[in-house]
C-alpha cells in the first residue's frame, strides 16, 4: 500500500458474506464484456453519500446479509449505515444501538459490528471522507468475476486494513426519515422473445408465484416456480443483455440479470424489470415469493419519473 496514507483506518475483524466497495458503476464497457456493476440499490447508495455530505459518486462499502465487523483506529469520524440493517457499535465493552440513516460519530478503538440486513439483502456503509480505493476504468466498483476495481477486485478479507484517503470534520447530527418499503409484485415490460412462449406459459408467468432461490448474487436472481415452456427454441443467437432482463433457461426457469451480469446471453428474454422497481427487486432475499405484472413502456417511464422525484426530494430535504 501507499506510504503517505492518512493515519486513520479500519481493521477487518470479520469480512461479512459479500462486502465490496461500490460507486455509481462503470459505463461504456459492455462491448468488451465488463458489466455496469455499481451499488445494487442505487437509492440507498445515494442516501448514504447524502448523509455523509459527500460527492454523490463517492465509494461506499456494500455488504449483503451479514455485514463486516470493523475496528476503527483514528480521529473521530462521521459514519452512517443505509438500508434495513441491524448493527451496533461496541465502545469500551458497551454495546451502543443506533439506527440507519443518521450521522454517527465513531471514536478511536470503536468496533462497528454490522450484524445483518433485515428481510433484505444489501446495506451500505458511508464515511464522512473517502476510503482509499483503486479505480479501474473510471470506477472503483469491485467486480469479483473480472477481478477489477477496489481491493484488487476482491471481497473484503479477514485481517485486512481499510485505509482512508481523508476524513472530514464531524458532521452535525442529522437524520433522514426513510422506510424501505418491500415489494412482491415486480413490474415488467414485455421482452423481445415474448412470442417464444405458449399462451399458457405466459399466463403462468404473469399470475403464478416464483420463489427466489439461494442461487442469487450480484450477477442475478434465479427463480423456481412453474416451468415456462418454450414453443420455439430454448436458445437464441447470443446477444446483448441489460440489468433487469428476465431470461428463461432451457430448463424453463427464469433468471433475472443484476448489476454484475454477463454482458451477452443466449436464452430468450421474456421480459425486463422496469427501472423504478430495480432497487427494491435486488433487496428481495432468497426464500421470498414474487409475482410479475406486465405494464407498458409509457407507464414505466412515468413511474420512473415519480421514483426519481421521490429520491431527489429525500436528498434535497436533507440538505
Amino acid at each position, binding site marked *: 500500500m501507499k506510504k503517505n496514507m492518512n493515519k486513520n483506518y479500519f481493521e477487518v475483524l470479520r469480512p461479512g458474506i459479500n462486502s465490496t466497495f461500490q460507486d455509481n458503476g462503470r459505463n461504456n464497457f*459492455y462491448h*468488451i*464484456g465488463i458489466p455496469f456493476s455499481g451499488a445494487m440499490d442505487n437509492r440507498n447508495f445515494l442516501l448514504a453519500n447524502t448523509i455523509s455530505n459527500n460527492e454523490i459518486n463517492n465509494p461506499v462499502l456494500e455488504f449483503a446479509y451479514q455485514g463486516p465487523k470493523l475496528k476503527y483506529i483514528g480521529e473521530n469520524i462521521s459514519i452512517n449505515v443505509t438500508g434495513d440493517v441491524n448493527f451496533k457499535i461496541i465502545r469500551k465493552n458497551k454495546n451502543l444501538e443506533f439506527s440507519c440513516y443518521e450521522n454517527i460519530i465513531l471514536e478511536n478503538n470503536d468496533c462497528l459490528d454490522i450484524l445483518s440486513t433485515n428481510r433484505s439483502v444489501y446495506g451500505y456503509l458511508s464515511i464522512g471522507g473517502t476510503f482509499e480505493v483503486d479505480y479501474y476504468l473510471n470506477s472503483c466498483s469491485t467486480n469479483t468475476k473480472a477481478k477489477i476495481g477496489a481491493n484488487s477486485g476482491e471481497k473484503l478479507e479477514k485481517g485486512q486494513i481499510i485505509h482512508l484517503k481523508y476524513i472530514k470534520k464531524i458532521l452535525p447530527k442529522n437524520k433522514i426519515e426513510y422506510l424501505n418499503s418491500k415489494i412482491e409484485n415486480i413490474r415488467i*415490460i414485455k421482452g423481445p422473445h415474448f412470442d417464444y412462449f405458449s399462451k399458457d406459459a405466459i399466463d403462468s408467468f404473469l399470475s403464478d408465484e416464483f420463489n427466489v432461490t439461494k442461487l442469487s448474487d450480484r450477477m442475478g436472481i434465479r427463480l423456481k416456480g412453474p416451468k415456462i415452456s418454450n414453443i420455439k427454441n430454448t436458445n437464441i443467437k447470443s*446477444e446483448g443483455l441489460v440489468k433487469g432482463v428476465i431470461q428463461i433457461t432451457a430448463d424453463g426457469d427464469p433468471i433475472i440479470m443484476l448489476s454484475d451480469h454477463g454482458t451477452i446471453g443466449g436464452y430468450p428474454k421474456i421480459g425486463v424489470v422496469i427501472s423504478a422497481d430495480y432497487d427494491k427487486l435486488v433487496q428481495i432475499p432468497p426464500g421470498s415469493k414474487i409475482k410479475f405484472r406486465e405494464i407498458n413502456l409509457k407507464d414505466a417511464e412515468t413511474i420512473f419519473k415519480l421514483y426519481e422525484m421521490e429520491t431527489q426530494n429525500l436528498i434535497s430535504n436533507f440538505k
Partner: protein
Amino acid sequence: MIKNISNLGDAALYCDFGTEVNKEINRNVINYFNNLRDSNFLGITNITPSYNKLVISFDLKLTSFAKLKKQVENLELKKNNNSKNNLIKIPVCCAEEFALDIKRLQKLLKINEAKIYETFFSKNYYCYMTGFIAGMPFLGDMDKSLFAKRLETPRVKVPKNSIGITEQFCNIYTFESPGGWNIIGNTPVDIFDNKKNTEPNLINPGDTISFYPISKLEYEKKYE
C-alpha cells in the same frame, strides 16, 4: 441495415439486423456501433454489438426510448469505419495437458488430431463480438469439417486462456470460468489484461484473428 428498433425494457434500445449469422450483417452491426461511439448522443450508457443485434442502454434520467430511437434512425453513417479493425496473431500450445477435448473431437468428427489442427490453423477468424465474461472474443467461421456440439455437461472450470470450439465458432476463455466448448489448446497471451486501464482487451469486434501453433517450450517462455 437496422430492420427494426424496439425497446428492451424502459432503458434500452434493441436494434435488430436480422436472424442470420454472417460477416456482412455483423459488419453492419459493428459499423453502427463505431458510429454510435463517436456520436455522443446524450444519455447512452452502453452499446453492445452481437452477431446480428445491437443493444443500446441509456440513462432514463437523461433521455428516453422515443428520443434515442429517433436519433439512431437519423444517424448518418460514416461508411467502412475499418481503421479500428486489426489483424492479431495468437499463439496456441496444443500440448496434451491443454487440449482437453481433442480425443473427444477425433471421435466426434472422425478425423485425426493432426488434420484437426491443420484445418484449425489454416484459417483466419473474424471477431463477431466480445463479452459474456470480460474480453472473451466470439470468433468465426470454423471450417465445416470441425463443426462440433458443446459438451453434454459443461465444465465447472475451464482453465484461463483455453481455446474452445463449437459449431461455427471458436473463442478464448479470458478467465477461468464455467463453459461447455471443446477445448483444443491454450494461449500464453493474456487477451484481457485487468492491469491495463485503457483498452484492456486485445481483441475487439471486427478484428481478424490468426492462430499459430507453438511448442510447450515456447509457451513456457512466453509466460515468463
